[in-house]
């Protein structure tokens, strides 16, 4: 499961998700307000906060479909960075 920092960052980009609503792994992020410009802003925030760079295969809207998919990508990147 993701950490608090991830959830806090993600929630900042979901204008239509009420504060008291759970951030579920399968939540459709677009439905809750993450549009294309929001994806770019979120990408920049996450790369900065986690000191990672999304690899070519992750640079797509699909990576930002749900919290679960996004966190899995980010966690994998962090592991890769740690190994290097």
């Amino acid at each position, binding site marked *: 499961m993701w950490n608090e920092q991830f959830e806090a960052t993600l929630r900042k980009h979901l204008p*239509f998700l009420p504060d008291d609503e759970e951030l579920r792994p399968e939540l459709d992020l*677009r*439905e*809750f*307000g993450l*549009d*294309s*410009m929001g*994806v*770019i802003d979120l*990408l920049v925030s996450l790369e900065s906060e986690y000191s990672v*760079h999304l690899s*070519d*295969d992750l*640079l*797509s*809207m699909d990576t930002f479909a749900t919290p679960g998919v996004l966190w899995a990508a980010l966690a994998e990147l962090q592991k890769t960075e740690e190994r290097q």
Partner: protein
Amino acid sequence: MSVGIIFPGMGPWGYGDLGRYIATNPHARRLRRTADAVLGYPLMDMYRTAGPNYSEYAQVAFLISCLALIEQARDTLEGEPVACTGPSFGGKAALAYSRVLPVAEAILLAARLARCEEEYFRTEHKDVVTQSIARTPGPALREILDSMAQRNEWTDISCHIDEDFFMVSMRASSLELFLKEVRAAGGFPLYAMRPPTHSSAFGALRQKAEDEVLGDLPLRDPCLPVIADQNGSVVTTADGMRAMLLDSFVHPVRWPQVVHSMRELDIKKVYIPGPDSLFGRVRCTTRHFTVVPIKPPRPEGRRPVNVE
């Protein structure tokens, strides 16, 4: 301090996004009645069944929403706008706002242009898409396009949105390799538009729109300057407005030049009436202006489906 108006370009907003606003807001309801009368069909019934796309109904609904929102906000603006602009589809709202045509005729014009485009793309350029890409600086994009040209693949920049944000038209068969090269350069592909837009390849569409819709339409000089999205020129005549609308088919949007022209007019604050998901949010805009979105109120609870 001078203020300006930016009428947003259009995304394929679903009925749920605008339907409630048009059904309930007095300004929007009045415009909807005007639209129903001039178009000869119930706009919102047609829009509801058309789905989130760029249909004639969606385009007219988007137009009247933008016009209603600026009308609704008129008394709250900090000063009389010194100019307006409308990137891409927003040019039609800019035309109505600047009274180049009475609103009923502007609505009819938007519907007829939508039909004209729909007819054209039904048979022409069916294999062409317009792809948005972010985080791709101009020189990196140039390199990619040059390598595609060496492979005899056709491309055309349709929209310069910011220094690292573009829309590029190309054949669908070229898209996969293009996206691969964009990602390899650290860029982020967003979405592909079908039908495509703003390309020098669409000269026949410009001609069709001139012959069938705009050629002899009696336009008036705008009541305030309109900044053309193709080059940032300040348009003050009816002929200039006609050329601006027609050139929109074949010339790319050059948003940084529009921003430059607004700054030359000492505009410090811009109002954006309508559901903007792009031009009011890019750095090119936000670093130079105070941006005030004027949006339809959001329905309570979960956001209705909205795809871009």
